[in-house]
């Protein structure tokens, strides 16, 4: 990972269904969590579920994030299903 990239991590069902634990992606100016999600969903196949019916939660730098949360170079973004611990 370089400072110009961002890391995207996937957990639980998403990790399994995308068969991907993490990705490094270049950042684009003005990028947001929602924009990143659309970009990934456009890959099609299992990726389409990122904008499907089942809710996807997001975190930026290990704090819960919203679609409008900005994404900067060096950030760690994570996508995962609603949490089910406890």
């Amino acid at each position: 990972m370089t400072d110009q990239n961002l890391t995207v991590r996937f957990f639980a069902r998403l990790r399994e269904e995308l068969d991907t634990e993490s990705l490094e992606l270049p950042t684009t100016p003005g990028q947001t969590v929602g924009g990143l999600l659309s970009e990934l969903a456009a890959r099609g196949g299992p990726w389409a579920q990122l904008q499907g019916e089942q809710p996807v939660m997001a975190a930026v730098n290990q704090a819960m994030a919203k679609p409008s949360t900005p994404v900067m170079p060096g950030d760690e973004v994570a996508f995962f299903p609603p949490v089910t611990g406890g």
Partner: protein
Amino acid sequence: MISIQTEDFDVGAEYEALRASGSGTGAVATFSGLVRDSGDLSGVTGLFLEHYPGMTEQVLQGLIDSASQRWDVRKARVIHRVGRLALSDQIVFVGVCSAHRGDAFAACEFIMDALKTSAPFWKKEITGDTEHWVEQKDSDLDRSKAWK
């Protein structure tokens, strides 16, 4: 104090550590969650628990901090196990001690309810050779919102 661990824990020892929080402590409330035979599925024989290392600890510390701002919390303890668990195994422990029982109960229940909807843990139910990622419950979201 927060621990995320694969190993089991000893509720008796955790209780004794909480209790030893000074002569102003009048109340200790604890909660333990166990692997139950029926969740989303029936005939559950075990669980697999995944988490987001780093974020989990931050979220849980944030919950303890929020509880400490709302109630008298002398000491709080959260333990959550991850990895493979068997039927009746302990999953989670939350313990709070306070001067007063109302505060101990409220802080303990708040931390558990908020953990359920905001701490990045995911549970997979195992029934024989089938596996199933547990779905978040509306009832859990409702309980969590009720504290707002």
